[in-house]
Structure formats: structure tokens, C-alpha cells
């Protein structure tokens, strides 16, 4: 045992920034704790009662003092707020060239899917030096994907994609925790994120044989589910063409617009009448319950691959505004345990 550690490993570009802010607040807190403690201990000695009938001085208060100790803490708090908000804003804006990973939480494991088609359970391989964007969802109850070494986390909520991103900086093996209580084996829902040098990562990708990339698997599903009968590339089908739509704003039936991102695609597949593109009849059946979370992610990757230039644009950052239902398979534990 090398003494008691005070900080977790710092392995992402956020880590040092979060640590710096943390130390700043620690310093402020220590200052106020010591200042007030010293003051009350000093008063305790200096003004201790010397004879039984003694009373304190009659003092009502002081407006300048009250203002001083309201305004100064407020200003300090504003520094913290602005610093923290800035960092948070950054944490919510994944850069355009991010590597895409899909994560699904279920009682009690984490399932990861890479664009290349590799699938992992409770283990995640990522390269250093590249922003990684993870879209997180859940098949049953709430979970939370937490990487202490990267200083970031996000809830996994059934029915929604929640985005998370980080840039790993230091190769090594670090914890993955579930940070939102999810039942019996909540503390067993842990894993390891393996950060590798880019070259080793390429080797690992090559070694991970799979049944094709996510987009390829998605393309197969696209055929199997007969999406092709309506979504013609020509735009003459009963559904809109899916070519070059990702990242663009489309006009909807009710006159509003929506940016086509993963959240919108997810909603349109599972809850197809929610936001229909203008000029199209809402004929599409809902695929709620007919497609697994993995399949859904593959399908979305396929649709994204039809918009090659969109990869250069900033991906979406906020989760879909309205939640759509979870695509749990009928045997999902959430249903099995009901009543």
C-alpha cells in the first residue's frame, strides 16, 4: 500500500481541468473553514466569561459588514460558477472528428459497440489522442456510465440516447462504474476501459473479428425490415430519401424543423409518427419492440453512412427532446419482474 491516494488516475483531457477547478474550490473552502474556526476559537479565549454576572457588549449589527460578507462570497461563487459552466459546456460539445461508440446498460452489465462492428461487454478499448463520443442508453432501469479517470459520466435512461465524450490521454486500464443505483448487482456492474496507443488500437481493431461493421450490419437490417421499399434514394418513395440527411435540418409536417441526429433517427424508427417530414404521409409503422438496442444502433450507423459529408460536421449533443419508449426485447428483465 503506497499510502492513501487522494486523486484518481488522470487519463483524459478533462482530468487536469477538473482537478484544477477542484483544487481551486478546495483552497477557497479551506480558507473559509480555517478563517471562521480561528475566529470563533479566538473569541472563545479572548471573550471567555470572567465573572458570573458578566454580559456581552450591546451590539445590534453592522450594515457594511453584512454587505461585505454577502457580496464577497457571491463574487467568489460567481467565479466558481463561470469556471464550472465553461468546463461543462466543453464537456457537452464533442468535436467533429470524434470516434463513435454505442453503449447499452442493462442489469447488470455494460455492452459496447464500435463502428467497426466490434462488440464488448464490460470492457472498452479506446485509443489515445482522439475524441471518443459515446451514445449511452439503457434496456431496463436507470444506469450511469462513469469513467473516474476521465472525470466524466452520464445517466443511461431507457428510451433515450445520452451523449458523453472524452479524449483519452494516457494508456492504461481504468475503472468503468455504474453510478446510478440499478438493483441487486449495482456494484457488480463495473468494467475496465483500456486506453491504448493509436497503433496498438489499430491492431486490436484488426484482431477483433466480427460480422461486419455496424453500418454493414445496419444495411442488412435495412433490407430485412423492408425499409428500402419506401425510403428510395430518388426521393420518390413513400418515405423521404435518407441520403445526405444527417446533420441537416428538415422541415416537419407541423411546420417546425428538426436537425437529423441520432436522437431524431432513433425516435423516427421507434415512434415514427412523432415528427414526420413535411410532405410525407405518416404511413411508417412503429418498430417499437421489433428491434434490439444493438440493431437500432447499427441501423442508425447505416443511415449515417449514407451521409458521408456529415461526418465532417459537429455531431449532435443534446438528447432527443421527447423520450421515446425503450426498445427492450419482450424478455427484458424490467417486464419479467413486474408485479
Amino acid at each position, binding site marked *: 500500500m503506497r499510502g492513501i491516494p487522494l486523486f484518481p488516475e488522470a487519463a483524459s483531457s478533462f482530468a487536469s481541468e477538473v482537478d484544477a477547478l477542484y483544487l481551486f474550490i478546495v483552497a477557497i473552502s479551506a480558507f473559509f473553514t480555517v478563517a471562521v474556526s480561528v475566529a470563533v476559537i479566538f473569541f472563545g479565549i479572548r471573550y471567555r466569561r470572567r465573572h458570573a454576572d458578566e454580559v456581552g457588549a450591546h451590539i445590534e449589527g453592522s450594515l457594511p459588514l453584512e454587505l461585505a460578507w454577502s457580496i464577497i462570497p457571491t463574487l467568489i461563487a460567481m467565479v466558481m460558477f463561470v469556471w464550472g459552466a465553461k468546463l461543462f459546456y466543453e464537456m457537452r460539445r464533442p468535436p467533429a472528428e470524434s470516434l463513435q461508440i454505442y453503449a447499452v446498460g442493462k442489469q447488470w452489465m455494460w455492452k459496447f459497440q464500435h463502428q467497426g462492428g466490434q462488440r464488448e461487454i464490460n470492457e472498452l478499448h479506446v485509443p489515445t489522442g482522439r475524441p471518443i463520443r459515446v451514445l449511452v442508453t439503457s434496456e431496463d432501469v436507470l444506469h450511469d456510465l462513469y469513467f473516474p479517470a476521465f472525470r466524466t459520466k452520464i445517466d443511461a435512461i431507457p428510451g433515450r440516447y445520452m451523449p458523453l465524450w472524452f479524449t483519452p490521454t494516457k494508456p492504461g486500464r481504468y475503472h468503468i462504474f455504474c453510478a446510478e443505483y440499478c438493483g441487486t448487482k449495482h456494484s457488480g456492474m463495473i468494467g475496465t476501459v483500456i486506453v491504448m496507443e493509436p497503433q496498438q488500437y489499430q491492431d486490436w481493431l484488426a484482431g477483433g473479428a466480427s460480422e461486419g461493421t455496424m453500418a454493414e450490419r445496419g444495411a442488412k437490417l435495412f433490407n430485412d425490415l423492408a425499409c428500402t421499399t419506401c425510403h428510395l434514394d430518388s426521393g420518390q418513395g413513400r418515405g423521404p430519401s435518407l441520403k445526405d440527411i444527417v446533420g441537416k435540418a428538415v422541415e416537419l*409536417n407541423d411546420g417546425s424543423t428538426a436537425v437529423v441526429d441520432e436522437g431524431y433517427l432513433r425516435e423516427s424508427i421507434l415512434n415514427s*409518427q412523432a415528427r414526420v417530414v413535411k410532405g410525407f404521409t405518416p404511413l411508417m409503422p*412503429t418498430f*417499437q419492440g421489433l428491434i434490439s438496442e444493438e440493431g437500432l444502433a447499427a441501423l442508425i450507423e447505416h443511415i449515417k453512412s449514407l451521409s458521408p459529408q456529415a461526418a465532417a460536421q459537429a455531431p449532435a449533443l443534446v438528447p432527443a427532446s*421527447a423520450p421515446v419508449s425503450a426498445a427492450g426485447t419482450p424478455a427484458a428483465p424490467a417486464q419479467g419482474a413486474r408485479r
Partner: protein
Amino acid sequence: MPQQREAAVLGMWVFLLTEVLFFGGLFIVYTLYRTWYYEAWALASKSIEIVPGLVNTVVLIGSSLTMALSVRAAQTNKRKATVNWLLATIVLGSVFLGIKVYEYSLKFEHHHVPGASFDFYHHADLLGETHEEPASGMTMGRAEINRTTQLFFSLYFVMTGLHALHMIVGVVILFIIAWMAHKGRFDSEYHAPVEMTGLYWHFVDIVWIFLFPLLYLVERH
């Protein structure tokens, strides 16, 4: 005595404030889901028989009137009238609850009670009716309609159920107050309990005045 009465009035208002926030939570949930699932809301609301709801609204407004008259009677020392108006209020309250029971039984019959046996079109299927076309510009699949209309009916039952519970409590209190009035406990000096009951009863009525359009009249212009 006046201090006691003032305390009771203040206490009652604070209690009603609590009640406003209690129902307020439900109204927030209702509003949010109504925005998200407007079509389902319109569809489900249309499936509710409007006549019993309309009758109930009239009955309840009438009961507020009889309640107010009984408070007036108590204030002016008219014992007999106080009791009679209270009894009239009880009768109207009971009529409301009776109609509510009838409405609930319809929901069970139509499989409009959320849960495993929920089937929005069960009743229409039974009658061999063609499905009513939902509002313009949408065709939700049957599964989708069953999914989201269940949310509406869940809220329908919780909201009307809690309201009915308040009515039942109100009727019980009215019985007690009527009995006390009959025993001659109140006069023009002391009638705070009648007033307090009146405040409560009017509050419960007002809740219904909100519930009725929110649940029965979503897309009936």
C-alpha cells in the same frame, strides 16, 4: 372566540394551499404528456362519454350553491335551513359520486383501464365499428395508440380518483357538520366549522372545473 375563528380560517387556507400543490404535481405531469402526445390525448379524450361528465359538472356547481346557502343560513341563525341545505349538498355530492362509479364501470367494460388488459379499440371492435379516424395528419399504429392512450387513462384515473376521494371525505364531513347543526351547535356567533367545510367543498368543486375540460374536452371545440 374571534381569535379562534381567525386561526381556523388561516389554517384552512394554508391547508388548501397544500392541496393546490398536491394537485399541481398532477397538472404538471398532465401538461407535459399532453404536449408530447397530443394526438393520443385528443383520441382518448374523445372516447370518453361527455354527457355524464357534463351532468356531473352541473351537479357539482349546484352543490356549491347549496353549500353557500347553508353557510349563509348558519350565519343568519337559521338552523333548519342550515341542515336542509347541508343535506342537499350531500345528496348532490352523492349523485356526483354515483355517476362517477357509472363512468368507471364503462371504462372497465371498454378495456380503458391501464394495465395488461388495456385495449383502446376493444369496444369499437366488439361493436364492429370502423375505427374512428384520429385527428388530421396522423395515423398511429394500433400498438402506438394503445401505448400512449394508456398514459392518458392512467392520469384520468389518478386525477378523477383523487378528486373522488376528496369528495368522499367531503361528504363524510358534511354528514358530521349536518348532525352538529341539527343538534344546534352553530349560531350566528359560532359557525366556523360550517364555513371551513364550505371552503373545502368549493375547493373540491374548483378542482373539478379544471379536470373536466382537461380530461373530457381535449379536442371538442
